[in-house]
């Protein structure tokens, strides 16, 4: 028989109207060929004939089945097309439904940065960027586009950044954190130089198909295991950016880690600082503690929220990370979406800090009014 000891009540609705900036919204294609009109003829013919080509077996597949069809909430399917593909439906269910003041588009569609054919990848990046403006941002100015670039072809990435730099509808630059080499490596620095020149943060949303296992000891067996590699991957990424001297070389570079978790950050700072003090002779290009570079340059998004049993544990961790560096996100329409009212109920922080996390930090970072 039941051993239930308590009936947990649903999170109480916020007393006042909660408005949010959502730093992770995934826009979808209504049909797979919706991108074709945005590609030049040469690459339209290419994709029709040869398709995409990732660094893993089987074209256009994921390495693990991901919990739900289209990785999405079962209630996020519009009348026609897959989740996230219908603006009217997204407005009703999410933008209006959750009082989203601004939303950051995180297009993962066809993974331009993952394409082995660099020419196709670059054309796809340009097409996805034009598509964001045409399908989403023009009819819905609450949405902000991301400049999708191909990190393995810095020249093409720079050209794409420069061509969008004057268009403020693009809030940031997006590349996958799972690249061919750790993103701190010098081969990627020209992209960072262009990002600073364009005055845009980098948004690194978990994922990327680089052909390597997601863990340092091989391929995970389970999706739940792969989920946790997002945390390990973000730690490796931050470590690389700091230790290679990216932030010493580009003191104005700002980086947003999207969907990679938050609670691990204090531990990484402690450990890097400790090791730096002993091993700084190996990395003399660093002039400050790793934790200082991290705080000055790195922002984190909330979803999927770490959910300790005691809410005050979460608040303590957020304080250690810095409540000025954490930004709210939902991951709509994906299955692990976080509802803003739920997140508010979990943040045992002052009203000012809650406001900063729900919108103030993103407004300051992206220069939103």
């Amino acid at each position, binding site marked *: 028989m039941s051993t239930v000891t308590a009936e947990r009540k649903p999170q109480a609705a916020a007393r006042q109207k909660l408005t949010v900036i959502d730093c992770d919204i995934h826009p979808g294609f209504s049909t797979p060929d919706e991108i074709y009109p945005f590609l030049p003829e040469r690459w339209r013919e290419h994709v029709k004939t040869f398709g995409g080509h990732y660094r893993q077996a089987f074209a256009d597949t994921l390495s693990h089945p991901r919990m739900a069809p289209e990785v999405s909430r079962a209630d996020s399917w519009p009348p026609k097309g897959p989740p996230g593909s219908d603006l009217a439906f997204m407005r009703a269910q999410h933008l209006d439904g959750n009082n989203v003041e601004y939303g950051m588009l995180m297009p993962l569609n066809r993974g331009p940065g993952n394409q082995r054919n660099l020419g196709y990848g670059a054309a796809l990046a340009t097409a996805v960027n034009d598509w964001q403006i045409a399908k989403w941002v023009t009819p819905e100015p609450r949405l902000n586009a991301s400049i999708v670039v191909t990190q393995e072809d810095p020249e093409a990435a720079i050209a794409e950044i420069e061509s969008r730099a004057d268009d403020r509808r693009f809030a940031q630059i997006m590349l996958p954190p799972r690249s061919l080499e750790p993103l701190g490596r010098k081969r990627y620095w020209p992209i960072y130089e262009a990002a600073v020149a364009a005055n845009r943060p980098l948004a690194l949303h978990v994922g990327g198909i680089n052909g390597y296992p997601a863990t340092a000891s091989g391929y995970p067996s389970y999706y739940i295991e792969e989920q946790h590699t997002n945390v390990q991957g973000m730690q490796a990424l931050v470590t690389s950016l700091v230790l290679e001297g990216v932030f010493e070389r580009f003191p104005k570079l700002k980086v947003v880690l999207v969907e990679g978790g938050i609670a691990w950050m204090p531990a990484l700072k402690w450990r890097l600082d400790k090791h730096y003090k002993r091993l700084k002779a190996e990395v003399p290009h660093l002039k400050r503690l790793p934790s200082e570079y991290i705080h000055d340059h790195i922002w984190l998004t909330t979803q999927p929220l770490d959910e300790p049993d005691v809410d005050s544990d979460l608040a303590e961790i957020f304080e250690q990370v810095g409540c000025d560096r954490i930004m709210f996100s939902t991951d709509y329409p994906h299955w*692990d979406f*976080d509802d803003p009212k739920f997140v508010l109920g979990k943040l045992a922080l002052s009203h000012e800090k809650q406001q900063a996390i729900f919108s103030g930090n993103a407004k300051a970072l992206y220069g939103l009014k």
Partner: protein
Amino acid sequence: MDRHVVAKVEDVPPGGRKLVTVRGRPIAVFNLQGEFFAIGDKCPHESGSLCQGRIVGLAEADLPGEYRLSRQGEFVKCPWHGWEFDIRTGQSWCDPTGTRVRAYDAHVEPGAEIAKGPYVAETFKVTVEDEYVVINL
């Protein structure tokens, strides 16, 4: 406690479900092989609508490598984060000691019996020829 007539039996076939509102509460009504059950619609985690979830069984294992599927069709999985609830009792499978949704008394009554009253029918006319799902609340 009132008798709330919430559906015609034929409108919720075996394996089906229907979202109803009783006294302002959203309630998910399920038909498990001819037997009717009703639980609160809002998931206690982040308030996903359980009525829109997939109907599943349990995958269980006593040891790694020994798997069995049991109680097929008796659980609903929240459409957001996949928390499973026992449709019969509202008990949570993923957090059985800390979480449950309320289960309501749902049963079938013939129209002739209901017509004697008193009852509350939300959206349709009760006829003596049909059978109805009734929730006591």
